């Protein structure tokens, strides 16, 4: 009854193109932000942070990144894990080489380095499309993981071949390292997520976003309009890799703390993010978030039900978890190929007419 456009008049083009055109959506958004910043840090526990909130936020950044490339610009990539590794190793090298560098700067620079690497591997996209491009990016995935394993300089010649994060603080609070507490980690990542989501929304709504979508929908027509295909695809690769690099840097430095590259950034991570954007919704910022939430929360939920409630053995539960999630993915693809975001959009359209559909 309250979810109405009626009475919510737009009197300027700026108001007409705002992110949340319906008043209730706007309030919902501000409420969510307020809860996330003010309430959650008060009640957060280590379990909730490590099992749900931190991975959710970090994967949300990665799926935002991949969604820009695949959902908005139409370029398929299976190199996400490799690009996350670039972000992680960049942050490690930066932190160890410049101990005084602010962590925000480290994360930002890791993103920039990954963007450069992403552009390099994006170059073939001018010539090859679709599945063939996917294979080219798959090469990036394997090459990068191999590189970080093979060249000792990247892991500072440590005996184990692992990288582990030094302790770093932001505004006097430890954010990385074993001693850092969950509130600080959570707030640090949350600030970055909100900023990146805001930037993603802005980039996709204007000139650049439209040129991406034009290339995705009809590249010949895009060219006729004056869109330079190579430049446009490469900016998409750069921005996308920037996001994914930041996600990788946070995943390593704030979340895991110590990383072995093949394990943490293998091909399964590339697929995980791919699933997130497909389930969440291609070409949707909101979809990136719900896709990440779904893929992070579902295993935790299933495990709690199967092990906690039903009392199954953990190994059986772990296998069933894969079966159920696989099944759910297939189900989603059949029922709603445009993802949860589209489902939400349809619900909203229905809600807008409810209870008088005619």
């Amino acid at each position: 009854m309250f979810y109405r456009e009626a009475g919510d008049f737009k009197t300027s083009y700026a108001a007409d193109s705002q992110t949340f055109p319906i008043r209730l959506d706007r309030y919902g958004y501000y409420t969510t932000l307020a809860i996330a910043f003010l309430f959650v840090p008060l009640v957060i526990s280590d379990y909730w942070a490590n099992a749900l909130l931190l991975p959710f936020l970090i994967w949300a950044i990665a799926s935002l990144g991949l969604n820009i490339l695949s959902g908005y610009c139409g370029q398929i990539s299976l190199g996400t894990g490799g690009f996350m590794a670039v972000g992680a190793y960049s942050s490690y090298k930066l932190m160890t080489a410049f101990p005084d560098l602010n962590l925000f700067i480290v994360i930002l620079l890791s993103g920039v380095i990954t963007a450069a690497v992403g552009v390099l591997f994006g170059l073939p996209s001018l010539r090859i499309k679709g599945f063939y491009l996917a294979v080219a990016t798959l090469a990036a995935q394997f090459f990068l993981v191999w590189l970080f394993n093979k060249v000792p300089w990247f892991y500072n010649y440590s005996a184990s071949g692992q990288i582990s994060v030094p302790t770093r603080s932001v505004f006097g609070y430890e954010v990385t390292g074993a001693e850092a507490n969950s509130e600080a980690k959570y707030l640090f990542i949350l600030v970055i997520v909100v900023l990146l989501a805001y930037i993603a929304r802005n980039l996709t709504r204007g000139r650049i976003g439209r040129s991406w979508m034009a290339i995705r929908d009809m590249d010949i027509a895009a060219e006729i309009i004056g869109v330079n295909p190579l430049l446009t695809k490469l900016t998409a690769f750069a921005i996308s890799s920037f996001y994914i690099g930041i996600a990788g840097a946070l995943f390593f430095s704030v979340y895991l703390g110590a990383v072995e590259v093949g394990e943490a950034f293998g091909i399964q991570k590339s697929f995980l993010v791919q699933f997130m954007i497909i389930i969440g919704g291609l070409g949707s910022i909101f979809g990136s978030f719900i896709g990440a939430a779904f893929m992070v929360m579902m295993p935790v939920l299933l495990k709690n039900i199967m092990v906690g409630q039903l009392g199954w053995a953990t190994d059986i539960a772990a296998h069933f978890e894969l079966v159920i999630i696989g099944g759910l993915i297939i189900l989603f693809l059949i029922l709603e190929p445009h993802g949860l975001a589209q489902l939400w959009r349809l619900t909203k359209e229905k809600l807008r007419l409810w209870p008088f559909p005619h």
Partner: protein
Amino acid sequence: MNATADTYVTEDGRTIGGPVMEMKNITLRFGGVTAISDISFDIREGEIRAIIGPNGAGKSSMLNVINGFYHPQEGEIWFRGEKRKPMKPYQIAQQGIARTFQNIALFKGMSTLDNIMTGRFTHMKTNMFWQAIWKGPAEREEIENREIVEHVIDFLEIQSIRKTPVGRLPYGLQKRVELGRALAAQPKLLLLDEPMAGMNVEEKEDMSRFILDVNDEFGTTIALIEHDMGVVMDISDRVVVLDYGKKIGDGTPDEVRNNQDVIDAYLGVAHD
């Protein structure tokens, strides 16, 4: 009409200026097949120029040459008094040439508004940084261009489908949105590839009216390919006729209609 003079006056009293685009001895080959052989013609400021001919005559190839999709092996293209160097299609778009396609080439995932806003691409300049910040130059530029796009939307009478995804629109409206996208670029030369293909009489009338209005109100130079002879003869100022990649006629609709070569190759005669 004197084709060599710099200007001429049409039947309905519009003054047509000098050449905007001159094609000089264009030859285009695909391997052993000659799609266009030694064709010259010009398109003048403010006129509606039709290119007609039977299937496979090289009409669409000609538009693709103008657009930069194909690069002719021989011949010169002069645009606004300058010889054009070989360019990519997007560079040619930046010079002010817009077009529509025979098979609709809209951006299916975007709304009508976004499609037409994309047509403003060459006029929008704010860089990545300001786009990311949004508040400030990017938003200002967006609103300025939105106003121009809204003029186009009003002009084409498609206000009610502004926010509709174009994939959901009927064929005739999609054609109109595509015209809108080309118009939004405020082109110096507008190319229309069969703007009325597959339309019913009413839709054709609408489209003809829009083409004439565009030419009249904005003074846009238009080159179009069309198969409906009634429409072509009614709306165009000059017609060039192609057949098997050769030019067989060029002139006003009346001259072309009475040209024996054109009658033989394309128009035919009424049996009575």
